[in-house]
């Protein structure tokens, strides 16, 4: 980070620990109410629906057998007609019962998945912000006797930071150990004997990540906007180095998402999907895409697909709106922070945002909530798709889950960064001098929104 810093007392960091504890409480409460309370009720309803379907199926099969026997035994026409009418009526009842069973199952999955996802997200939030805050709160208090900066006295000189390198090293260690980490976790979850040593390298990587990030925060928190590094040579001469770096990063991210998209196109051009049949390019559907499960007129194949309606498309549609709204809230956070003549709004908004500090924090908090909602809805939608037979084991499923999962991961990483921004907004305060943090994070967040603009129609609608 650059110099030109305010002094921040270590005790401030304890608020990060409190913030983490709050998230933990929210996660546990959400899990208890949604993931256990409501989900158990829905599971009970689902079990009843399964019994009703079994009964209806049994009645229908008996009626079908009676009808076929009557036909084989040359029964009277009236008797055969009566048996046929009964069979047809029972078939309708059976189909209704099946529909209710599927609905009840999806409803159960919705609540269960929501509860578990919120819990896991809140535990991650709590660990990330809580551990980072704790590590910084126990550091020796910095000597502030030589002026504003504790990283050097010169406000115009860049002193660099090792934190990104430590952070990158942590990621490398985590990924090196990830295959064993994942295998061990799978064994633990499936009740098999697991080698706990398999978790070691990745856990060490996570520890290094936390240390790197917490040190990065420690360097950034006191930053009051002086001494932002300026590029001195082409092509970014005169521009903020951090901003230029972020754009180069976004450039690389465009390439990453382009690889997913070109892979998808390559696979898709080969498949005979419902769209291709409708366009007259092939005759029989041989592949179901995610949109076949989500759209109202999705194609069917082997008893799968074609179940989509407004409700199945809803989570993806809500997510699209949520990302756009979150893009706007981050714009509002920056606008507010940059506005030296900001005045508190009147009415209800005035109560929400009585001060500039509260306004910036609440806009960021709104962005955090919308992003979190995006992840929860995405996992609910995935659980429904998997339950309906669209798994990662299918060709269309593999590219769908990898692409939308990579996007979801970007959203989640953005949310972790946002946690810190909320913390900074609540403690040091963003203003017209130090709002670069929001601006640069906003660029990343808008890019994530932009990627969704391509992913949503390509994978969910087409």
């Amino acid at each position: 980070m650059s110099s030109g810093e305010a002094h921040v007392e270590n005790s401030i960091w304890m608020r990060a620990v409190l913030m983490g504890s709050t998230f933990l409480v929210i996660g546990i409460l959400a899990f208890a109410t949604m993931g256990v309370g409501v989900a158990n009720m829905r599971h009970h309803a689902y079990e009843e629906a399964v019994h009703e379907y079994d009964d209806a199926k049994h009645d229908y099969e008996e009626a079908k057998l009676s009808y076929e026997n009557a036909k084989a035994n040359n029964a009277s026409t009236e008797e055969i007609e009566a048996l046929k009418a009964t069979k047809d009526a029972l078939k309708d009842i059976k189909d209704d019962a099946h529909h209710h069973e599927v609905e009840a199952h999806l409803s159960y999955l919705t609540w269960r998945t929501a509860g578990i996802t919120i819990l896991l997200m809140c535990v991650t939030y709590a660990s990330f912000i809580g551990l980072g805050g704790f590590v910084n709160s126990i550091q020796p208090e910095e000597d502030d006797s030589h002026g504003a900066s504790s990283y050097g006295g010169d406000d115009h000189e860049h002193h660099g930071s090792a934190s990104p390198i430590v952070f990158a090293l942590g990621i490398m260690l985590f990924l090196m150990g990830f295959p064993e980490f994942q295998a061990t976790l799978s064994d633990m979850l499936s009740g098999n004997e697991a080698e706990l040593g398999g978790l070691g390298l990745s856990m060490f990587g996570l520890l290094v990540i936390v240390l790197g990030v917490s040190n990065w925060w420690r360097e950034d928190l006191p930053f009051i906007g002086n001494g932002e590094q300026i590029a001195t040579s082409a092509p970014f001469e005169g521009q903020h180095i951090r901003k230029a770096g972020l754009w180069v990063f976004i450039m690389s991210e465009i390439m990453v998402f382009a690889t997913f998209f070109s892979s998808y196109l390559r696979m898709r051009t080969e498949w005979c999907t419902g769209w291709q049949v409708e366009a007259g390019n092939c005759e029989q559907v041989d592949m179901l895409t995610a949109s076949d499960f989500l759209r109202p007129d999705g194609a069917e194949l082997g008893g799968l697909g074609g179940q989509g309606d407004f409700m199945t498309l809803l989570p993806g549609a809500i997510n699209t709106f949520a990302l756009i709204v979150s893009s706007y809230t981050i714009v509002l956070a920056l606008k507010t922070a940059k506005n030296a003549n900001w005045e508190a709004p009147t009415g209800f908004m005035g109560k929400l945002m009585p001060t500039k500090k509260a306004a910036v924090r609440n806009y960021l908090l709104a962005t955090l909530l919308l992003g979190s909602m995006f992840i929860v809805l995405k996992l609910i939608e995935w659980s429904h798709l998997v339950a309906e037979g669209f798994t990662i084991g299918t060709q269309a499923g593999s590219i769908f889950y990898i692409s939308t999962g990579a996007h979801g991961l970007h959203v989640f990483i953005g949310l972790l960064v946002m946690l810190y921004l909320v913390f900074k907004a609540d403690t040091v305060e963003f203003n017209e001098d130090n709002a670069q943090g929001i601006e640069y994070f906003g660029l990343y967040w808008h890019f994530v929104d932009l990627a969704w603009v391509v992913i949503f129609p390509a994978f969910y609608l087409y």
Partner: protein
Amino acid sequence: MGEHETHGIIENIFDGLLGKDIYFWNFIILMVFTLFEVAAVFFTGIPLKAVWAILIGVGIVKGYGISAYFMHLKGDPRIYTRTALFPVVFVILMLWGIGLSNPEGVTGLPAWCTPLSADYATNR
């Protein structure tokens, strides 16, 4: 983002309209176009080619709105736009060279492209 001044025909129309700035109107336009996008697929009577046109058209408008105004490429120095456009060359190459040039898709990949999943690639 919010603090960047832009001056053009669009900005002249929208900036200050009904007391709201360009970012607010950009947000509204994005929301409305997303509604078109979802509605195009939800209403099953719309012809296939029209749905295609709507999805692509809406994507272009939304992409422009986000990058030009929310990411403030329109008010920033040109170098940032050039940086953002630089990978487009590779994106076009990938979409055309990999995505669209081979009608056989994955089954047409040479074996060395799929060393770990030859069966997956050839026996769908």
